[in-house]
């Protein structure tokens, strides 16, 4: 858990985008049926406990508010390191995710634990600033010690059909990141169609993103299993092209264990066990973790739990 990520995805050429993007045909009805059929898997007993433990290790605890303070970050990091102080068998979460100005504080709090510090940059969540500002924002986060950078794609350019601009911006930000882990947020709620999600995934992957991420969490429409399915197919097709295994982060709207387990089933059956690792799959969710901890305790003790048994994050 929380292993150092050695390899990053090198940026490929724009021509690779063109090659892959032609093959973006998706039938939404068929896709929905497949996703729904995966959701009928019945995960019980040991396999459920395994899943819940995996989910904890894949969680990115997040606070992205104007009201974030040092105190808030301290609370969250403490919870990230020891999600359930009474059950030490439970691992720490994968990372904490904060704004650039709070990276150095978070970095100090995680100290030598396995928990990574991720920063949202490039003027998250809208990204509506000049490129120079996005680069500065990102550089600042990296200089402050961020292990991972979450950027947003240029939806304005994307929706205007200027895919090349979207690509070039990610390539430029990737250059700033160097070997710092780059997660690219597609904001699927803005893209709406599966074909757009597919195209944005391909652009992001070819441009060198180590992860593609569904959402900022700032929109009413966050992640969906359907969007995740489109993204995972893109990741697999990109692997077939480049040999690189990229990761996926789902964020926004994943509130309970049942839903999270359905994501894991999908990852397991469509991608295989390689992706059942925080190195390649993450959940960005703040309220999910408490429900997972409750479920773990329920499985271990047989009793349903109340939220006040678990510390605030």
């Amino acid at each position, binding site marked *: 858990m929380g292993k150092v990520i050695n390899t990053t995805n090198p940026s490929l050429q724009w021509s690779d985008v063109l090659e892959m993007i032609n093959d973006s045909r998706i*039938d*939404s*009805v*068929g896709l*929905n049926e497949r996703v729904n059929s995966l959701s009928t898997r019945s995960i019980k007993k040991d396999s459920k406990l395994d899943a819940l433990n995996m989910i904890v290790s894949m969680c990115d605890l997040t606070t992205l508010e104007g009201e974030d303070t040092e105190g808030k970050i301290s609370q969250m990091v403490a919870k990230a390191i020891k999600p359930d102080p009474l059950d030490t068998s439970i691992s720490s979460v994968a990372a904490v995710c904060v704004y650039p100005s709070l990276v150095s504080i978070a970095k100090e709090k995680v100290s030598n634990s396995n928990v990574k510090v991720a920063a949202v940059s490039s003027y998250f969540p809208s990204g509506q600033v000049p490129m120079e500002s996005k680069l500065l924002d990102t550089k600042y986060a990296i200089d402050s010690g961020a292990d991972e950078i979450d950027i947003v794609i240029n939806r304005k350019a994307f929706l205007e059909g200027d895919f090349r601009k979207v690509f070039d911006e990610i390539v430029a930000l990737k250059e700033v990141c160097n070997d710092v882990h780059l997660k690219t947020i597609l904001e699927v709620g803005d893209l709406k*169609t*599966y074909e757009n999600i597919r195209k944005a995934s391909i652009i992001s992957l070819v441009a060198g993103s180590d992860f593609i991420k569904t959402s900022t969490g700032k929109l009413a429409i966050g992640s969906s299993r359907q969007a995740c399915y489109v993204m995972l197919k893109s990741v697999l097709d990109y692997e077939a092209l480049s040999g690189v295994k990229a990761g996926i982060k789902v964020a926004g709207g994943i509130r309970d264990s049942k839903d999270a387990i359905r994501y894991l089933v999908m990852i397991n059956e469509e991608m295989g066990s390689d992706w059942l690792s925080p190195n390649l799959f993450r959940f960005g969710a703040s309220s999910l973790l408490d429900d997972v901890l409750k479920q773990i305790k329920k499985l271990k003790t047989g009793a349903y739990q109340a939220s006040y048994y678990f510390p605030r994050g």
Partner: protein
Amino acid sequence: MIDIKKTYKNYVGGKYVRSESGKTYTKELKNEFYELPLTSKKDIRDAVTSSKDGYKKWSSTTPYLRMQILYRLSEMIEGNKESYVELLMDHGLTKQKANKDIDESIQNIVWFAGLADKWEQLAGNLNPVSEEYFNISHQNPIGVVFSLSGSNISLNELLMSILPSLTVGCSVISYSEENSVVALKFAEDINNSDFPSGSLNILSGKFENILDDVSKHVEINLVALHKELDNDGLKSIEENASESVKRVFSQPSIEGLSSILPYLETKTVWHPKGT
């Protein structure tokens, strides 16, 4: 030595052809003699080959054009009405009955002409399936139809054994015994019409000679018997037909929409509705 008034040939593939067997039979009408082809097994095979070709052409003709070709046929019969009436009277029909038969024939052709571009709307429909799918059932013509016409002397009855299947785009091998002089005269109008060659082949002879070949021929998709056969005949046709799951209809309905249903295969197509 008998005096032959007229020699008829089978009408196959848009041409008048003798039976390859060279066999004929004669029919006496009002002291005049008609020499008619006695269709052989080989003739049936040739007719099926022609009908397969005719099916391709006729079934891909647009309904609008099929309608016009049928309507023009009615105009031609109307133009030749006197000669048909005369021929029927030669067979012993009264002038009144003969006139009525031709009038009904014309009316029926016009009725089916108007059906040519409507039956798909009457026999097909959208199906309201429960999921996000577009689902429609529509019809294809069944293919090559062998139609045995009835024993009465009548152009109208002959037509009612042909029009329902022809209208929906099938090609038809029409076979007459008693009514063959009328049928082969009718072939002349077909020859002058715009029906593609092979879409309607008209033959005469003794059905019992070819019963086995017709019912066993896998490329005949449907056998329509507009004539009551003895039980042994029907049984052996249906037994032979079972070897290729061939459709057999004995005295099918010629009423309204029911008349065309036997000649249609329902095809249901599904497609998702999504973005």
